[in-house]
């Protein structure tokens, strides 16, 4: 087994794992950080959405060996720290709009939402329904309408 070092939620971590183990399982099963959820393992449900160097990605579909020592991985647990606050504005909006039902997909939804808002800003695009409809994260409780409201509200304060 090889040693892998990267930054997870602001701290450098080193873990022993075979090169080909997908990052989701390294984070969840070996490091015990359980915010990112398994929902498909093939990058379609997006429940594990986290950030790599500030961009949304799905660790279920990345081998741990492809992560470098200077890569910054942020899971939902580390999101608030990226803005130096107790809660990220998107998390606050999520609470205010009473979005989550079971909550299982919501860490991934929030991480995708934050990245989408940033992406639109970077590209000079308007954050509108069409932009939100690019988000592929599935919510089997069907909370989509409140997710939309929360994204608009959260974006205001980002």
């Amino acid at each position, binding site marked *: 087994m090889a040693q892998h070092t990267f930054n997870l939620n602001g701290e450098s971590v080193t873990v022993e794992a075979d090169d080909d183990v997908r990052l989701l399982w390294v984070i969840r099963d070996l490091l015990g950080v359980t915010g990112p959820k398994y929902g*498909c393992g093939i990058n379609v449900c997006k429940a594990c959405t986290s950030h790599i160097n500030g961009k949304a990605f799905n660790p279920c579909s990345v081998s741990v060996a492809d992560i470098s020592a200077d890569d910054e991985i942020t899971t939902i647990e580390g999101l608030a720290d990226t803005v130096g606050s107790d809660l990220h504005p998107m998390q606050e909006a999520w609470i205010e709009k009473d979005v989550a039902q079971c909550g299982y997909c919501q860490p991934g939804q929030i991480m995708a939402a934050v990245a989408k808002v940033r992406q639109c800003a970077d590209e000079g695009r308007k954050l509108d329904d069409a932009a939100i409809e690019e988000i592929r994260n599935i919510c089997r409780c069907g*909370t989509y309408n409140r997710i939309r409201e929360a994204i608009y509200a959260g974006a205001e304060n980002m």
Partner: protein
Amino acid sequence: MPAHSAGTTTPRDQRKIFGSGLMSVNRRKFLGYLVAAPTLVVVADVGRQAAWGGAEASAAALPSPPQTPEYYEFVDAYRDACVPTNPLLRVEVKEDGRVAFALPRSDNGQGIQTLFAMVIAEEMGIDPSDVDVTLADARPELVFNQLTGGSSTTYSLFTPVRVAAAIAKGALLEAAALALGSEARELETLGLTVTDTAGKAIGFGELSRLAAVPVTTPVEVLLKPQEEFKVLGKSRIKDDARAMVTGAKKFAMDIQVPDALPTVICRAPDLNGFPDGGPSNLDEVRNMPGVTDVAPIGNGIAVRALTFGQAIDGVNALELNWNPGTVAGKNDEDIVEGLRAAELPLVAPAVPGKTLEQELVHYSRNGSALETNCAIVSFKDGKAEVWAPAKSPIAGAKIVSQKLGIGVNDVTFHVVPGGGSFGRRLFNDHVQEASEAAKAIGKPVKLMWDRANDCRQGRVKPLCVTRVRAVVTDDAVASFELRYSGVNMEVDEGLTDVLSSQLIKAPGGNLGVSETFWEISVHTPYNFGVNTRLMVETNYGFNTGSTRNVYGPDTCTARELMIDRIAERLRKDPVEFRTEFVKTDRLRKVIQRAADEADWGKSMPEGMAQGIGVHQEYKCATACVVEIDARPETVNRQVRSGRTGPRVTKVTFVVDPGLLLNPTGFEGQVLGGINDGIANAMTAGLHLENGSFVEASWDNYFYTRQWNTPPEVNVILIEDSEYPEPGGAGEVSVAATMSAVVNAFRRATGVEPEYTPVLHKEPFPEGFTQYPTSPPIPESPRNGLDFTF
């Protein structure tokens, strides 16, 4: 010992009336018990109040005799089944003064933990944040009273829990009266203290010890009048909202249990196939990286490893032969043919020129939640400990005990909040398999189903065929007959016991389990003369279960679609026609409100249309108006491997919920159910092909996604319902929405629907990946970094 007991000989004016102010003669008293212990309290229940009033007939409508759900629904049956054990429910005041209640139900996102904190807080005059509602471990002594399903939780527990809370408050006031030298009626709760008019206060924690009784004591109690509610009726965000958005909420697979390592099962290519002998490369797989154990269990081979990824790799590496499954070689149409042949005959004769008849095939639907089936079982020294999301944990504990060969008392079963349920967690499949694996391997296991098998081998809403025949006169409906022929709808052992206990009450008296559920859940709420509804189910060897509303959505859609056709025949507007023929004022009001709010009949561009659907179940009345856009520019939208097609652009949903307890929670459930209704109507169906389901992931199975959800949704909760009890929320909006969408689709496109979902036979979208059934689990990609944004 405080003088709480109030036997029947106690003069009325001396009775202690807890938590309720002065007693008035027309308010009902409830009996409960103070339990010998710290302040533990108990309840009894409660009669029924009619949700629907009497049927009314309009001038033209031919009255139909009442059908069972108009006076006795599943939620009534379930509540009745719980009455004997309601006295075992305890509201407890802890030594630190906080109030605790172990809810004997399963929360999978309905928000019932928050709701019951509100209920208890209301009755005790405290803040909901001071009430800790947890999910109770399996308690076999509760018999029927620990089952979650049929949107019955609030309806079945509202009054019993209020009674327990009211008695707890009364006991605290009594204890405080003795301690402070005051009269109990001069005291009130403030924060977690009891205070008197002079401002002297004493904490709940101390009072809890003072209020302890040495023997269990009966108490009568009056409940707080609804007009005095301060907590209930106001929206409250879920208590675990913060935990959910920070990743702190622990689902079963997030719980760390010593040595309980990830375990995945290798399953057959066919639906319900099973191994033909053992793997030929067992040792090779046991030596794979991370793999710790490989062991055959009932229907497959369990692989335990350091990570789930490595367990999945082990599963996919196993080489073995499989026996054919229960529908080997069959396709959907083979099953449909059998269902048609089994259909029960229609009673009223067809009258030439006056008969409308319609058949719909409703394809199987995936019952998966986003969290796949999962359970942790640790079995050591003859004792088992289980962690699992489970809606029928008493039956689950029994299964664990049978599989491990130990007594039920040696099983501790923790009910963990689930990542969605939609009926799936009524069954203990995951618990059974985790028990088998723990025993076969001899070590604790954290067992999780992979997504592909959760889709393909997991329980589905059964494939069924509905038929409706109506005979119409010049201005009315002379007969309306509904037939349902389906693949059998399985229920778990726990729900079977509940339904069996109620069989005797159903008309006919000797119905099977499914027929009982049908009899007490399905009806036609219109005055349509001779009005029959019959079902038949056939066992084809599918794994089935209800998926968010049992028979409601398909039968409602069959009915409401036919009603649109009848209205057309009679040259009446669909809303006007329903208003005239619907049986009750309660339904009439929601229909009219929905039509008003949605601006029914407004002019729309070619290719767009409105549609309406009406339903009553779970003691609620619902009406839904949708707008659909079937214009080419919308239909032809391209989303990579996503189903687009006509889009529902606006939903107006009106529900009379009975007594409304937490508006934001109820609205959330309605919003979710709307998206289920749209999925049922438009996109979400399974294809059985050569003995197994094609769909193996969320990009295969088209549940509503952001690009399908309506941009505009208006949910209206009637706040001044005349019905005084809380109706069920979890499934309430699915049926009316599904039917409204199908009606709108028909009006917008001119296509006569023959099946649901209406896009079921469209070609799969570009980018659709059909995954092989062998190896059983699609390999995780490695190119995730190509898709960052």
